[in-house]
């Protein structure tokens, strides 16, 4: 195992009878990075996370966290990990402060240490005022934040988050993303499952796409984008109808593909980066003024759709309707 790797998953498989929920997946997580597992409902995200935290037994394969074999010795591994499940599962009867203290106690923290840390976390998560209110009286966003706080009360080396922003308001989701980046800044390694492509793009250093229990693509955001980009594309918006000029442009810039987008917009696609001045000079010479030039890059959503064949909008709707999670 590479010393930089804090998590190594090898040939991990989970079967329920004839159904294979996770099918022979392997990946690793380096210390201090945020890795996202992105996929639709039922893809195997939660099953994967459950095996990694010791809540489900793999049918085959191995998981090592910080050098500890999770399959053989889950309790030792659980001491160095923090867990934020997909549902806020703290105790409704207890207030925020007591919930945090209880979670600290489960990790063997002394009374003084857990109370001090609970106060710090309530402050960090903007929940100090709500600290003495019962958890059941919290809004969804507040519940989520307290659940994350509970997951890090013992300052774990690696934090697992299952769908951390599902079903909460935009502002809370934004705040949670900031908190995740802040945790990363403090050296915490984070493994996150999500169905929000834009969330993965914003917070993750590396992403894996999981569909039907298999990892179908992985890499950094730019690596994934490059995997579907074949060249560089420029989009030019002009003041004139370009229809009569398309053939001329194609003849002049033979190495590029020229495509009319609308009557006054074209795209040029080349294998190499496209120098701008010859194009501008050429169009200017023909009396065409260019108002806007933009390099077109695929989004992570384009990559996801291209690789998985699943429409990103459908992915979001499925989850928000409360479809089957796994």
């Amino acid at each position, binding site marked *: 195992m590479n010393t930089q790797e804090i998590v190594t998953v090898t040939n991990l498989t989970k079967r329920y009878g004839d159904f294979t929920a996770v099918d022979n997946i392997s990946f690793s997580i380096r210390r201090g990075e945020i890795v996202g597992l992105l996929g639709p409902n039922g893809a195997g995200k939660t099953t994967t996370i*459950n095996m990694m*935290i*010791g*809540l*489900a*037994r793999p049918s085959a394969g191995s998981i090592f966290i910080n050098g500890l074999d999770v399959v053989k010795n889950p*309790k*030792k591994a*659980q*001491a160095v990990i923090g*867990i934020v*499940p997909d*549902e806020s*599962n*703290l*105790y*409704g*009867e*207890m207030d925020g402060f007591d919930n945090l203290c*209880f*979670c600290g*106690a*489960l*990790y*063997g*923290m*002394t009374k003084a240490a857990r109370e001090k840390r609970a106060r710090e976390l309530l402050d960090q998560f903007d929940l100090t005022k709500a600290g003495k209110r019962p958890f059941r009286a919290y809004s969804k966003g507040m519940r989520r934040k307290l659940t994350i706080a*509970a997951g890090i009360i013992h300052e774990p080396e690696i934090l697992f988050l299952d769908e951390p922003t599902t079903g909460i308001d935009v502002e809370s989701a934004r705040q949670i993303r900031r908190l995740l980046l802040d945790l990363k800044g403090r050296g915490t390694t984070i493994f996150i499952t999500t169905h929000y492509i834009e969330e993965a793009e914003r917070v993750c250093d590396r992403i894996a796409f999981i569909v039907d229990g298999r990892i179908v693509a992985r890499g950094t955001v730019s690596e994934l984008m490059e995997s579907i980009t074949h060249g560089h594309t420029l989009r030019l918006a002009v003041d004139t109808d370009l229809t009569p000029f398309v053939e001329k442009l194609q003849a002049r810039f033979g190495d590029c593909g020229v495509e009319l987008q609308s009557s006054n917009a074209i795209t040029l696609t080349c294998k190499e980066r496209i120098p701008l001045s010859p194009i501008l000079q050429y169009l200017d010479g023909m009396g065409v003024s260019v108002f806007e030039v933009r390099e077109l890059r695929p989004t992570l959503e384009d990559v996801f759709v291209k690789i998985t064949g699943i429409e990103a909008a459908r992915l979001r709707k499925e989850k928000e309707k409360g479809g089957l999670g796994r």
Partner: protein
Amino acid sequence: MKTWIAFWNILKKDVRNYYLKPPNISWGIIFPLSWTLMQMLRSYGGVNLAEIRNLLPGLISMSVLFGTTSMLAVTITFERRGRSFERLLLAPISLSAMVAAKLSGAILFGIFNAFVPVIFAAFFVDLAGINWGAVLLAVFLIAVTSTLLGLMIAVSAKEVFEAQTFSNFFRFPMLFLCGLFIPISSLPVFLRPLSFLLPLTYGTDLLNRWILGASMMSPALSIVILLGFAAALFALCQYNIQRKWIL
């Protein structure tokens, strides 16, 4: 030390969140009291205070049985439904320590229930001469085995109502089979072997010996059998938890 901190806090949380709630305290008091009064009226055709001592072993056993089995099965099923139980499963303490902490709350509740009829009786009859240390030991052993039965139910049930239904399926036959109010010698012959398969029989027999001075078996044998039941039930519960809760 870390395990002890976790153990103590799980126990404290259960006592605060469940056992010290007004409905449970009132259940713990009213249920044994009603049974005491009902038995007194039923058995003797009127309130015969002098006979209350004879009812004590059965009433104590029943109070412990009902207190422990209902509470543990319901609280665990409730926590599993809300998924807060996952927090306990994912804590870095052994499964045995976590289960022992959950059991301890129910055992304490059972012991509290056991002494409600005793306190009630103390107002009306002379309870002098009873070895209360020995009675406490018997109550403790009944509470442990009954709580473990409650845990077995909790492991099997998915919903709170299922836990309650399963509990009653076990508990009500035990009222009649374990010598609480009907001596085992009075049961039909074919039912008697069944009585000896139930831990409550041995617990009630211990109480009979230490409260009334008469029992079927030697106390030492009953204690050994109860400890055996406790160990076997604990192992079985652990096995079932590993199999059913860690999927």
